[in-house]
């Protein structure tokens, strides 16, 4: 997973954050070389927490491309930790954090 987020921001500034996770996003419609259907396995939810408060939530479905890229924005209010969490089908959870310093 990769996150592109600014390290410093001015208070009240709108910062843009870009996230990317490597994932095949199998829709459950494709077949492998033997003709067997590959079961559905997608990242179904993405959450961004800013100091333990949810600021952005995305529910993803089958129509999101492989290696889902999500770009969004948020208002920099306080210095703190940004936590990015991806939920996969089957209960796997991936997360990463970034520090944001607000002056």
């Amino acid at each position: 997973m990769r996150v592109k987020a600014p390290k410093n921001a001015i208070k009240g500034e709108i910062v843009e954050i870009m996230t990317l996770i490597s994932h095949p996003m199998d829709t459950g419609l494709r077949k492998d070389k033997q003709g067997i259907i590959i079961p559905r396995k997608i990242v179904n939810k993405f959450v961004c927490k800013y100091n333990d408060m949810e600021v952005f939530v995305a529910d993803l479905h089958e129509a999101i491309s492989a290696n889902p890229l999500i770009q969004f924005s948020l208002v920099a209010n306080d210095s703190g930790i940004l936590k990015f969490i991806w939920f996969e089908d089957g209960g796997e959870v991936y997360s990463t954090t970034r520090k944001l310093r607000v002056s």
Partner: protein
Amino acid sequence: MRMDEQDFKVKFTRRYIIGAAGTIALNGVVLFLPDKWAGAKSIKTSEKQLDINAAGNSSKIKIHMPEYAYDGGRVPFSFTVESRMNETDYVRQVHILSEKNPFPRIASFQFTPNSGKAFARTQIRLSTSQHVIAVAEMNDGSSLTARKWIEVTINGCKED
């Protein structure tokens, strides 16, 4: 003269009968076949029809997407909803729907006043040329819709 009249009558009736039979047959096809074919797909299609028939075209939602995509497996997509994004007036949710994909829902995004602007960018899969619809739900419960047409060459949902 008599013969001609008779001929005309015969022709008229023949045409009339053939025409009537044709219309009945066509109506039969149109009226009855969808009922017979409505099976497992009926829930999916009704969901699609509901969303698309209700879709207006609000100028407050801007959908950014190419007009023509060669590969439907990776289409850059982004949207912005005009809103002040403060505690009293903000966009709560934006749903992205497709008209002809096997699964009509693409994604839904939830925003808060801390989002700053109602904006998101991602990459989507599209099966064929179709409308992509964005439905924005505001904090007071009202909703806005917008749609954009896109031409797609290669099916992005079943790539091998």
